[in-house]
């Protein structure tokens, strides 16, 4: 019961971050601030959801798999954000209107 | 209300998705006819293929019990073939662009007599602006 409650709370908190990331993606004025908004969804949103789902996991293997997914998404999100920012910095924000 | 939901649920995967697949197929066909850039045509073909996969899997998921593994296996081979064919088609587009200077399939009857050099020159003309029509592109035949 406690596990279920914790799961619900953590997943809901994660959803808030996803909503915030999407709102930032839509509302913020330039690439850098959008990037800032959506890495929160990547890192914290998925992190909270995974933390919540861990309480329902069947065994240590499942928990490890969930942690691995989170680590991979962290790495992917960091790399992608870094590289997109760098490319925008060197090539200009609107170079791509092609 | 609940009965309606149950009915909708039993129908859903078996009817909803094949219908969606048919719509995707028709949309891909429409895009294939209407668009001229070859990369877009390849995307349209892929969307048609996805429509076919959706029909196959939707029909496989119909009825009671587990879905039909034969249709799923067929789709699995289909996806791998589709990605290889896409890669080959994209390589062909790149090659064509290298030879002729454009990756656009022009509307109108093919101009068989035009040598390659001429095609590239025409392309060059047409580059006056993206909105400028090709000289050989007859808007009102």
């Amino acid at each position, binding site marked *: 019961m406690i596990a279920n409650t914790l799961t619900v709370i953590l997943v809901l908190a994660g959803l808030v971050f996803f909503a915030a990331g999407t709102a930032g993606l839509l509302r913020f004025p330039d690439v850098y601030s959008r990037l800032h908004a959506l890495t929160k969804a990547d890192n914290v949103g998925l992190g909270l959801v995974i933390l919540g789902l861990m309480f329902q996991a069947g065994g240590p293997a499942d928990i490890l798999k969930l942690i691995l997914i989170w680590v991979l998404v962290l790495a992917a999100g960091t790399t992608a954000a870094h590289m997109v920012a760098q490319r925008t910095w060197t090539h200009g924000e609107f170079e791509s209107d092609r | 209300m609940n009965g309606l939901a*149950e009915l909708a649920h039993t129908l859903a995967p078996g009817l909803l998705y094949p219908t969606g697949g048919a719509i995707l197929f028709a949309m891909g066909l429409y895009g294939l006819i209407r668009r001229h850039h070859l990369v877009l045509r390849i995307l349209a073909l892929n969307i048609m293929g996805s429509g076919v996969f959706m029909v196959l899997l939707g029909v496989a998921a119909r009825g009671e019990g587990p879905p039909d593994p034969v249709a799923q296996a067929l789709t699995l081979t289909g996806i791998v073939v589709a990605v290889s064919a896409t890669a080959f088609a994209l390589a062909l587009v790149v090659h064509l662009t290298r030879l002729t200077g454009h990756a656009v399939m022009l509307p109108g009857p093919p101009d068989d007599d035009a040598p390659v050099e001429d095609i590239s020159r025409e392309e060059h003309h047409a580059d006056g602006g993206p909105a400028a029509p090709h000289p050989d592109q007859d808007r009102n035949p």
Partner: protein
Amino acid sequence: MSLLLVIFDLVLLAGIIGVAWRCLASTDLFRAVVLFITFGLLLALAWVRLEAPDIALAEAAIGAGITGALLLVTLERLRSIMAERHSGRPHTPPPDPSGPHALLRALHDPPPERHSFFPALIFALVVGSLLVTALWHQPQSTGLEPVVDAHMDVSGVDHPITAVLLNFRAYDTFLELAIVLIALLGAWSLGRHDLIPARPAPGPILPGTLRLLVPVAIVTGVYVLWAGSHAPGGAFQAGAILGAAGILLVLARPRQLPMAPGIPLRLGITAGVALFLLVGLYGLGAGHGFLGYADAWAYPLIILIEVAATLSIALTLVALFVAGRPAGDDA
């Protein structure tokens, strides 16, 4: 619960159709490609809803790892070819004052002419409604599921899709591997590849990510291959994952790798088809028919073929991504 599922299905389908529509209507090719990547993601969710986790796995590996990179790199190739043609190389006309538009033409497609609107629309509508009518009138049936289920104990594996792919309908899989090989031969016949040059990574982040991702991808590929005998997974999915890892290496390697030598590369690429053919001929000789196995030998033979097929698919996908015969290969 079931109402929620129906709503989920409806929203998902609406999203898939809407994304496909915007993708096909896009004048900007880069936007079309990003929409197509999103389309693949949503499709994977649809396959999940259709109880096809195997297909979702393949779609994840191919959609996320291969198609997107392939399309983006193709756009860049087109753009650079167009740019070079207009930068005044010999054999091309002198640069045009309005040259930059040439770049736009490479990656833009103007909206189609009006006169093709109605014929195309009517044609698509007719085909679509015929399909929908046929599907709605198709009788409900369980398909071949009971037949497959009844023969699972002689298949050598515990996962019905693997049993179908590598035992009951091994012919399909054999020919499918041959088609993948032929696609590669076609791409190689176009000439040598133009490989993305190796460049030092700008900063420590990309090499660090590579160091994490590539080993994990290899382990995941082997895990998915192993899982295929009893759960969703198998040679195609594993090959796609390993191929995507190879594509990542091709894209991001910081220094030139030693070129894959011709003969081992060719052996690896043909391993799947060759081994399949050998096993098939052996079955023919042993009296089980082409591609038939003795029951006791089914499991080891399937594993053998799957390992070879995984290797071939991964290598072929990377080679198709690179497009063109390896440089410095005069064989």
